[in-house]
């Protein structure tokens, strides 16, 4: 049974190297142990390196990244109090033409809002939208229609007054059906709702009074 002998011998070596199980009287061979540890580490490094391409393959592909081009929207057809939704990077972008009453209600809401000045995540509100109405032109509001809580698309609740799921002093805004977050007509989140942040305002610029470019603001 020559095989059995060498098998046991190999086992003893491993046990001596790692487990300190006294299989035989053979003293620990420190040099062999060092080499076993070193080759084990080298194997682990190789294993981790081999995992990198697999994990990376799950990242957005070049095609998905390229789909982020800016989109143009014609806003001439939006009447006051109406909303247009356009697609940008696979996300819904809302364009709302706010009525004077809706604009007038905004400053009064500040005490009820979690972050009226959009200070928490300034990168999600471009500089030109860091004002009382969060937009370049007061009446035209542009925002990504994705709730900052868990990514649902909030629904329009533009009519003021008491209604189901909303506070009785509702001034008009957006309501997320998933977890009940509420936003005002400037996409600012109310206090004590699950969403932590105001709706993201994408980069945008006016090409003319009726043409809006979403996804780019550099040339302005």
């Amino acid at each position: 049974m020559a095989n059995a002998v060498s098998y046991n011998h190999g086992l003893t070596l491993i046990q001596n190297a790692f487990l300190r199980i006294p299989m035989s009287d053979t003293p620990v061979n420190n040099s062999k142990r060092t080499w076993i540890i070193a080759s084990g580490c080298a194997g682990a490094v190789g294993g981790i390196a081999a995992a990198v391409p697999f994990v990376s393959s799950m990242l957005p592909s070049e095609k998905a990244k390229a789909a982020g081009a800016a989109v143009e929207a014609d806003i001439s057809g939006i009447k006051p109090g109406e909303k247009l939704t356009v697609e940008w990077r696979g996300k819904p972008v809302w364009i709302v033409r706010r009525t004077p009453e809706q604009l007038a209600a905004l400053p009064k809401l500040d005490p009820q809002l979690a972050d009226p000045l959009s200070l928490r995540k300034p990168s999600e509100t471009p500089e030109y939208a860091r004002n009382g109405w969060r937009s370049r032109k007061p009446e035209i509001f542009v925002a990504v229609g994705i709730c900052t809580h868990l990514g649902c698309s909030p629904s329009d609740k533009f009519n003021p007054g008491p209604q189901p799921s909303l506070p009785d002093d509702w001034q008009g805004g957006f309501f997320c059906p998933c977890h009940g977050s509420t936003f005002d007509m400037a996409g600012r989140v109310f206090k004590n709702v699950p969403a932590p942040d105001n709706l993201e305002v994408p980069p945008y610029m006016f090409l003319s009074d009726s043409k809006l470019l979403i996804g780019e603001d550099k040339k302005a």
Partner: protein
Amino acid sequence: MAEFKEISPNANGGEKLMNWVDNRFPATKLFKEHMSEYYAPKNFNIWYIFGSLSLLVLVIQIVTGIFLVMHYKPDAALAFGSVEYIMRDVPWGWLIRYMHSTGASAFFVVVYLHMFRGLMYGSYRKPRELVWLFGCAIFLALMAEAFMGYLLPWGQMSFWGAQVIVNLFSAIPFIGPDLALLIRGDFVVGDATLNRFFAFHVIAVPLVLLGLVVAHIIALHEVGSNNPDGIEIKANKGPDGVPLDGIPFHPYYSVHDIFAVSMFLFVFTAIVFFAPEMGGYFLEYNNFIPADPFQTPLHIAPVWYFTPFYTLLRAVTSEMMYVLIACVVVGTALAVAKAKIPALFKGLIVGAALAVVAMMMAIDAKFWGVVAMGGGVVILFFLPWLDNSPVKSIRYRPTWHKYLYAAFVINFFVIGYLGTQPVSEIAGRISQAGTLFYFGFFILMPWWSRLGTFKPVPSRVTFTAH
């Protein structure tokens, strides 16, 4: 390694064949160890059928799943249509698909009952901790399997459910947004997400699941089954080394379980044929609308089996955080005042509590909602070490323990129901109370499970022949 066994030349063909096999593969040995000489307590009651039934449902899911994959197309443009094609044009496709969708809910029904059985009879206690841990891992894998499978029909609920759950990961500080991107493979849930969820649902998770099921059964057969009395039957063995209260799994429990299987199939087929949607609980109505990335359904809710944990998620608002911080502070104060541990440990507890409170104030409630939802599942893993009761089975615990368990079950149903409902002020408050009760039940278990007058445990199982 076993010795090579010669067999008498007069043996019949069947014996010769088995001898040939047994010399090369331990077929007879395995059959004896796991079936004909695996001794299970003779006092099993109806709660003990759900292990076998979950194995049956696993087989149903794998077989129906294989046939669905033959017709399904994991492509955002084609997926919804291919499911309708299975329902309308594939011969018997509707049956296979309804068996699969009903099977998903049936899986959770039997697994929840199976887990509750373990809770009642202390089946997770020493020496069955690993049986329980493998079981909890199966539950976790099952949740992942069900969640990813639910995306595949590419309906409105598929899409928005996945959107919400994947975004949960983005709540994790620092790495969250990148992690969510890695899971989705795109900036929103899309074709890439559907494709990879398909890969996980049909290959990766089922393989893990099967491995865990094997580990669960091997661990169980190593230690032997618990029973409604919570007594170790191995403590009383006859002269032949067989437990006095044990009977061979085969034929006694194999026949018993086949009977349970036929009863189960009555109910299962009745649902498949007459109520596959189960009033919107098994198949949600909004999922018959193709996924629309621009329009969230007015009310979205996960499938019923996720709703208790979904309520834990929704209950954590920024107001609730103050309550949770208060809980941490009170818990720490009690530990410092009451626990009989060295001052050094008390110092460590206070330090850890301060760190947790600081994190609770610094990080959004959204993240802690995710922690609550995950924690609701993960806390089950710790059950073997949370339960300090001197007896295993509910039968010999103080009567008020039974009421507490009943309250836990009712609470689980209540938070499960609330998880299906739209948010409202009153429902939110009940959810928060339910969340506190859910966690309180487990976190305070080391303390309450010791309290009360325990009944004497008999040395032999309670059993009347029938």
